[in-house]
């Protein structure tokens, strides 16, 4: 039994639980006697053997009060006074299938009753404490195990390694080869001869780009080889390393490691927002040879870097995309608030992926107990969980900062100019004493008085007044004053967090996106209409409007955890549309479904009451966001009314408005204080109907003049917006007018703004570090202590994660990229070796622990890791060195010695024949047939499907994926591309450093009959019809070069040419023009093992 380290904190909890029952704890002589006569003998006879000094099964001792109060792994054994809540009683009652004590034979009913009675009476126990004696052996046991386990090859810091001495000959130059040669010498093996140039060419091309070499490349290489033998291969290496397809190839490798997907799986397979941005980020990172240390920092903490990496060519903040690493993998929908276990399972998946990808260590095992084999405790697991749970898991704008600033500034200027132009028009209207004749106003009035805050309220009352106008007026004023006073009083209970008289948000509330950054407006700022004849869509109330300049601009406001905001409730005055809305997130709910979309144009108060916490939920937060910044948009199909199932949320206009934030305890929300009417009621009462109409007229006029002068008063906006909405103010631009020109210009600039690029990343601004609940035995219903963020104890001396005021992710990342870190460089260098050579120096790239393989060449591994760090963590330099070695350039010939002494090729005495990965098979068919579209990047492309399922967003794409490489196919967890699955695309839920390579008849069936393969063969046939080959032999030769990167032998030439004749269409006169014959032959090429393997 492995003991747990976290004993002491549990003692505290246990005591705290027990305190309420103190009343019944009084020790009386009677109770002590009862214990001594009945209870103690029973415990001794039935329990103490396993739960006493000698053994502590389940970590539990029952030989003292303190011991059972502390309890074992399941928590306190007894709650004094409460038999029904005591585990001991549950156990002896045999109530729980998993907890029956004593295990072999139940106690007699009367014995159970003795224990129940004892507990009910307060469980008086006079025995002396034994806890101290218990606690230390348990800790000492783990401590000893921990120290012992630190003594492991992969945990020893990297030290400089001296390479074996150079010697004569090609194997004596490059240190890597010398290490390998030393291994040969020890095992009495010899390397294979250097492989033929064409074989090497094909090998290199697949290793570096995942594509076959083009005939032109081959020709160039062979020509160079004739001219200058020594540099021609290096030239080829550099050419391929510089190819953009290199990035696609290695990004795909990394995508295996981080279990890349475009969707979140489970029931609804929702899109993972921005996944393709992360994929493209990887492609750029590998093509640009981003140093691995930086790559690590970006994926773990790209949002926290002081100097993010800005890609000026694409206008992207690259660093901010990195943390989408965390969002990979399957996400359960719903949240733990309803069903316990949701966030815990998700965090488990994240910890697993992180520790395997970067550390090749299995930390996820420690969810339930201290690791059985490695130096990882259960506490370590939960501390890492706290690191990952601290930040908000949400969408970020990855456009380069300031990308739209010029356009936005121009829009702001234009908006001001438009306003000024419109002011000229409105001023003229306001000067007209008959601008708003009573007859016009009357048409707008409802038969009954509307609500008191409605602009029409005094109009209805006054204009329909037949009697004493002055009296009516005075009544109105009185009513207005008293209501206003009441409402002002009502509003006093609200704590104003923001009224937006100035562009500030409450402290600790976080904002994102240009929509908020440029979204603050003063009362009455026009919202410019983006189409149609009108100039203004409306006049906005003061506050934040993400669409104030353009509804393309993204915007989000993120509330701190609800219980940290003062008051029991917080209310926001919100408006929104086009899938702008808000999201309630429980403990970062990974696929929360508490999403609401706003459909109101006029801001309305919405209240968010503090929620109760249950199931280990510590934080509930809200995001108010446009669709682009809603991390769960689009939600599962059916949850966003009006959104088609095939709309993945790209390029959507969306907006929200926030015009007030208050906190409060009661249920009511703030009321309108009727400011709009203040200027109406100034001055003496009118005496006639005409006078009252004049007052109304003047009310309007004054509001317009003030607006024109830029001196609006509180409430004017409501008056003016009412006038505008009811077409009582002009709102069109005369053709050719200055206003029209400005408007056109505004719309042109707005049109030019690109839709935002947003990805699911991390946001840790204004976020306090979060503790994460330890689950006893991994059981989500058994909450243990709260564990603070920290990194694995085995790296305690290397990091300052615990000292961070936040999650500590940056500190964690920084510690990983220390030059002598035992794992980071070793693990990565081994991955590269695996990808280049076919198997790693450590054959288990995801496990450097005790269940993994030991390195075949430990010194070489350390040497490479050291060199890698020394050369600036450059992936390309490392790969370049590897492919230039003699080791890489060996033939696949296996000698008898090699076969018998080292069948597994641990000593690298040949280069193994390797089957192409699934993607490379598909991509090769595209390339060889001429269908490949070399375009880089872009949104995921649906794979072909026999049946669609729109409710799960499983749509069918074109058979050939528009000729795009497989890396761009949509990786849906629910149904990944079938063709790729057939050739061992890894399980998209699991981090995979080394792919399986199965060999099954279904693959033969696919290659023979799959419509994609047939289509590519036909395409090749069509392309060949355009070629100018004179004879079938010429054509076969060209096909050999395209498919196998070599010329056929005479035998092969005959074999394939005669096959072409046999495969011709019956009765076709000219073989060279018989497309079917050549498509058939092409199909045979696709099935040839030489096509599917490289050696």
């Amino acid at each position, binding site marked *: 039994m492995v003991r747990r380290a976290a004993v002491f904190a549990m003692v505290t909890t246990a005591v705290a639980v027990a305190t309420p029952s103190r009343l019944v704890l009084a020790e009386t002589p009677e109770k002590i006697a009862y214990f001594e006569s009945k209870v103690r003998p029973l415990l001794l006879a039935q329990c103490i053997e396993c739960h006493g000094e000698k053994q502590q099964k389940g970590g539990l001792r029952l030989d003292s009060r303190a011991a059972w109060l502390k309890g074992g792994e399941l928590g306190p054994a007894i709650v004094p006074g409460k038999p029904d809540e005591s585990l001991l009683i549950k156990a002896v009652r045999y109530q729980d299938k998993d907890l029956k004590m004593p295990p072999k034979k139940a106690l007699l009913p009367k014995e159970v009753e003795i224990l129940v009675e004892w507990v009910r009476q307060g469980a008086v126990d006079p025995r002396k404490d034994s806890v101290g004696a218990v606690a230390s052996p348990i800790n000492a046991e783990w401590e000893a195990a921990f120290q012992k386990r630190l003594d492991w090859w992969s945990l020893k810091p990297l030290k400089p390694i001296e390479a074996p001495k150079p010697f004569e000959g090609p194997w004596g130059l490059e240190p890597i080869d010398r290490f390998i040669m030393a291994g040969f010498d020890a095992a009495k093996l010899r390397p294979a001869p250097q492989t033929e140039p064409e074989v090497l060419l094909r090998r290199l091309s697949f290793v570096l780009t995942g594509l076959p070499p083009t005939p032109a490349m081959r020709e160039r290489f062979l020509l160079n080889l004739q001219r200058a033998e020594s540099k021609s291969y290096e030239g080829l290496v550099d050419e391929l390393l510089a190819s953009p397809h290199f990035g696609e190839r290695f990004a795909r490798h990394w995508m295996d490691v981080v279990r890349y997907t475009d969707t979140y799986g489970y029931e609804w397979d929702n899109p993972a927002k921005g996944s393709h941005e992360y994929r493209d980020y990887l492609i750029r990172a590998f093509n640009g040879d981003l140093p691995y240390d930086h790559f690590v920092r970006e994926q773990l903490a790209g949002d926290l870097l002081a100097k993010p990496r800005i890609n000026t060519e694409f206008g992207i903040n690259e660093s901010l995309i990195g943390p989408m690493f965390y969002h990979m993998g399957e996400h359960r929908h719903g949240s733990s608030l309803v069903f316990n276990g949701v966030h815990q399972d998700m965090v488990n998946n994240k910890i697993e992926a992180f520790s395997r990808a970067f550390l090749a260590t299995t930390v996820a095992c420690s969810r339930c107990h201290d690791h059985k084999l490695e130096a990882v405790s259960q506490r370590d697991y939960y501390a890492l969980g706290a690191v990952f749970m601290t930040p908000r898991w949400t969408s970020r704008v990855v456009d380069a900062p300031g990308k739209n600033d010029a356009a936005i500034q121009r829009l702001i200027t234009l908006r001001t100019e438009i306003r000024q132009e419109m002011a000229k028009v409105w001023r003229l209207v306001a000067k007209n004493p008959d601008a708003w004749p009573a007859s016009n106003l009357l048409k707008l009035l409802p038969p009954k008085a509307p609500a008191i805050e409605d602009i029409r309220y005094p109009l209805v009352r006054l204009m329909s007044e037949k009697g004493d106008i002055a009296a009516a007026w005075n009544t109105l004023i009185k009513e207005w004053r008293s209501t206003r006073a009441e409402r002002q009083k009502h509003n006093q209970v609200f704590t104003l967090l923001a009224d937006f008289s100035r562009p500030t948000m409450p402290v600790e509330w976080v904002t994102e996106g240009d929509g908020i950054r440029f979204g603050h407006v003063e009362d009455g700022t026009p919202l410019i209409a983006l189409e149609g004849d009108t100039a203004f869509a409306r006049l906005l109330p003061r506050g934040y409007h993400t669409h104030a300049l353009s509804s393309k601009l993204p915007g989000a406001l993120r509330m701190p955890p609800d219980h940290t905001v003062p008051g029991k409730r917080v209310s926001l005055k919100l408006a929104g549309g086009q899938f702008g809305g808000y999201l309630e997130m429980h403990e970062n709910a990974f696929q929360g479904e508490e999403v609401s979309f706003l459909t109101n144009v006029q801001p309305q108060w919405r209240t968010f009451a503090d929620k109760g916490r249950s199931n280990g939920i510590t934080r509930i937060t809200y995001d108010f966001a446009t669709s682009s910044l809603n991390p769960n948009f689009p939600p599962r199909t059916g949850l966003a009314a009006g959104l088609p199932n095939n709309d993945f949320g790209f390029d959507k206009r969306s907006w929200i408005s926030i015009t007030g934030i208050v906190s409060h305890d009661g249920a009511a929300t703030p009321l309108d204080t009727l400011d709009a009417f203040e200027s109406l009621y100034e001055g003496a009462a009118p005496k006639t109907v005409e006078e009252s109409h004049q007052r109304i007229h003047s009310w309007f006029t004054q509001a317009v003049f003030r607006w024109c002068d830029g001196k609006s008063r509180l409430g004017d906006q409501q008056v003016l917006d009412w006038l505008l909405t009811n077409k009582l103010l002009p709102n069109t631009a005369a053709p050719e007018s200055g206003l029209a020109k400005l408007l056109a210009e505004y719309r042109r600039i707005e049109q030019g703004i690109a839709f935002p690029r947003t990805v699911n990343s991390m946001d840790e601004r204004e976020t306090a570090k979060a503790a994460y609940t330890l689950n006893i035995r991994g059981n989500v219903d058994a909450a243990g202590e709260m564990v603070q963020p920290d990194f694995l104890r085995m790296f305690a001396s290397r990091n300052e994660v615990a000292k961070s005021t936040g999650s500590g992710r940056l500190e964690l990342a920084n510690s990983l990229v220390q030059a002598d870190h035992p794992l980071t460089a070793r693990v990565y260098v081994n991955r590269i070796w695996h990808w280049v050579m076919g198997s790693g120096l450590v054959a288990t790239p995801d496990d450097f622990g005790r269940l993994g393989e030991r390195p075949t060449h430990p010194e070489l591994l350390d040497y490479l890791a050291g060199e890698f760090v020394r050369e600036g963590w450059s992936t390309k330099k490392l790969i370049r060195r590897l492919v230039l070695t003699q080791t890489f350039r060996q033939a696949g010939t296996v000698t008898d010695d090699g076969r018998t002494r080292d069948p597994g090729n641990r000593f690298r005495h040949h280069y193994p024949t390797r089957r192409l990965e699934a993607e490379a098979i598909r991509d090769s068919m595209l390339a060889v047939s001429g269908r490949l579209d070399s375009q880089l990047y872009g949104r995921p492309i649906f794979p072909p499907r026999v049946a669609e399922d729109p409710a799960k967003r499983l749509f069918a794409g074109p058979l050939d994926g528009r000729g795009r490489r497989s890396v761009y196919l949509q990786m849906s967890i629910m149904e990944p591309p079938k063709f790729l699955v057939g050739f061992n695309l890894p399980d998209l839920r699991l981090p995979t450093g080394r792919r*399986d390579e199965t060999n099954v008849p279904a693959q033969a069936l696919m290659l023979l009959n799959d419509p994609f393969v047939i289509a590519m063969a036909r395409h090749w046939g069509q392309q060949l019809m355009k070629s100018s080959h004179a004879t079938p032999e010429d054509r076969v030769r060209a096909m050999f070069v395209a498919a196998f990167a070599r010329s056929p032998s005479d035998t092969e030439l005959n074999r*394939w040419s005669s096959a072409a004749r046999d495969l011709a269409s019956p009765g076709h006169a000219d073989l060279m023009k018989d497309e079917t014959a050549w498509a058939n032959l092409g199909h045979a090429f696709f099935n040839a093992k030489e096509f599917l393997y490289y050696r």
Partner: protein
Amino acid sequence: MGQPWPCLLQCERVSVLPIMGRLTNVNRDTQAWPCPGRIVPTFSRRGFLQRSSLGFGWLAFNGLFANQTIAASHHVAKAKSIVFCFMDGGPSHVDTFDYKPMLKKHEGQKIGESAVSKRSQSAPNRVWLGSPWEFKQRGHSGLWVSDLFPKLGKVADELCVVRSMVGELPLHGQSNLLLHTGRSLGQAPSFGSWVSYGLGTVNHNLPGYVVLNNDWVPNGGLENFGSSYLPASHQATMMRAKGVPVDNIAPKDTAAIQRRKLALLAEQDAAFATVASDAKAIEGAIANYETAFRMQTEVPELADIRREPEAIRNLYGLDSKDEHQRYYATQALRARRMVEAGVRFIEITCPSFDGNNSPWDQHGMLKVNHEKNARVTEQSVAALIIDLKQRGLLDQTIVLWAGEMGRTPHTPAVSANCGRDHHVNGFTLCMAGGGFKGGMAYGETDEFGNAAVVNPLTVHDIHATLLHQLGIDHTKLTFRHGGRDQRLTDVHGEVIRALLV
């Protein structure tokens, strides 16, 4: 061309022994249909497995040794195959096999706080809902079966009903994965994959695990049928009811053209094998073509039920006017043919007929749509049991009828169109054949059918018991992955002997 078939027969013979079954099984991933005699002499077995292109040599090596202990503790199998009739979406237990008269009596009354459960979509103000169907005792055994299942009721004496199933989360994706993989998180091999991995197949032209499906992706995704970390050869082969039964099974070429291509490839590939570092992997790939070529005729023949006698076809319901019922009947009849052909694990999914997220998921319209689901499926399931029995195959074949959950005995408000919600706090599944006791009910829920109270069982117990009947000790069928010896039942599960003859 011309892989010697006698070699294959040899494999067939050895695969009857569990340990050798595993050995050939492991090898099969590298070598299409290996003759053990050809592999072993060249290298030590460990050496071979470690260098194999399989990519999991070390793990397989471990597996082999673990296997030797399996061989020692394994027992004689009672059953050879499982047909799993998966009632996707969760049929209501209280409307099928778990008779609760109290529900009718208290219909419309609030369930109260004490009936609320985390394993159920529940709230105190919901009300009890009586079953719209009458219950009767059927057969000699007097097993309670409702009128929803008149045909299944007729085979009541064959049914071993468990009424005390307890799940984990009342959500489809999680519960589907739990039922199929033993983990509500998934990321683990499907039950069928484990069976295929553990037993191999007796017919080398057919896979060991087939899902009779109609391009339906259940909640939880295709992972329900996946092999996860087990070798990919153990993942399910999908066979659809409508259209071409199996992807890529229909030759795209005429036989003559295909033979000519294969002849060309045989010559070309043989030469490539001589220059490859691992000739055997290439030879395996070559041999796959031989099998594939045969599968092109054998699989469609197996799937072709047109030549079954009309009486049998009608027994399954192929004369139905409802196309969904015909799909299901087709699949059930194919399942029987596969049992005969030696397929180890066959799953039949339910047809989805109205764009519902999962067929039996009646949150509303319980009466109408449960009846439709019953009509589509129950006749064929009953027919399968009858048909297997009359052929003497039922003793060695387990028919498993199970959804991923049950349905709440309560509803927000009683109405003609009301339904029942998700419920894993006590639900029902049943088995027939394969050494399970017929005509019995095991376990009980409380008087409202709201919680399992007597003999609660988990999916792990069912998995353990089913594996037991197949001759496999669930604690010993393991595969090393992620740092531990993984098994279908994780660290849980007990063989429930009370269910067994």
